[in-house]
């Protein structure tokens, strides 16, 4: 069965790389469990599914990942996002709070994680995010940046 990572990497069951990936069932199952834990958690910690998808879309664009941008775009469209969330997904910065602060943070940590400082977490707290929400947001950011790299690596390996 094709999973989200195969889809992102453009792998089909006929590909040698699809089978090579299954040499590590721990990685295949683990990545899928992780995806569910940040995009469809049982407890969303106050970060709704449509907000999470809008952020995932925004980060896929920052990573120049066409396949994941399309995937997150279609998932988000199915939820009928508000104008604010659509703007957030599209990379806008003139948003209502706390979305504006969240968007700035997501961009910073996706593009230049080395620039992260204590004050960036303080800004999230000032925008009203409690600790569980700050951690859940951090995990979502980190996951999408993991996912885009796996997908990129697999695509390169498939075509090389």
């Amino acid at each position, binding site marked *: 069965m094709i999973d989200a990572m195969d889809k992102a990497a453009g792998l089909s069951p006929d590909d040698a790389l699809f089978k090579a990936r299954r040499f*590590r069932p721990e990685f295949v199952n683990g990545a899928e469990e992780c995806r569910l834990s940040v995009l469809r958690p049982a407890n969303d910690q106050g970060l709704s599914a449509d907000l999470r998808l809008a952020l995932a879309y925004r980060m896929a664009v920052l*990573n120049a990942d066409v396949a994941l941008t399309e995937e997150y775009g279609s998932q988000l469209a199915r939820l009928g996002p508000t104008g604010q969330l659509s703007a957030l997904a599209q990379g806008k910065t003139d948003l209502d709070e706390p979305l504006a602060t969240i968007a700035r943070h997501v961009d910073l940590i996706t593009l230049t*994680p080395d620039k992260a400082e204590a004050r960036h977490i303080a800004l999230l707290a000032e925008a009203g995010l409690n600790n569980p929400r*700050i951690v859940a947001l951090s*995990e979502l950011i*980190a996951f999408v940046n993991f996912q*885009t790299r*796996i997908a*990129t690596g697999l695509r390169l*390996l498939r075509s090389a």
Partner: protein
Amino acid sequence: MPSVRLKPLNWHPYIAPVELSEATPEQLDAMKVTPSAKKVSDYVRTLAHDPESYLARTILFNAIMYVEDGLARPDRELGALGASMVNGCKFCAVVHARRHAELTKNNDVVTALYLDRPETLGPRDAAIHSFARRLSVTPSEATADDIAALRSVGMNDIEIIDLIHAISIFGWANRLMHVLGHAEPGK
């Protein structure tokens, strides 16, 4: 070159970690501790604020770094180190630099990277390090040439898949450790 020997760093969170006395059963289960346990790291207790993602990522992380066969352990550590340097996570970089030196019983690779002299690396380490750096920037700068370089030093697809995972999981871990806290020299 003088040899670089790194001392471990201590990590301090920017937010208050979960107190064990106040943890929910789900958080305790994710941390794999009982309420009477005294020593759970600040890092684990910080991430336990969101137990679902903590548990899922920990299982995946351990598989990627420690699973048997495939890519040699030091090569996974080098991938982790290259990613951590690009992502600016000093804590992770020191942990995995030290682990690389321990596993190989040699400080040369760590010395080359900390003195910013990657041109002194051997061909295999150079290919792994270069790929780790190029895959870690946003957006990725890795190309088919990187894959060709890995194959030219004898790596097969299984090993390259392992390496992609070792680098990418630090695209994740670095964005937790370096974002949610900071590292200071230990005692």
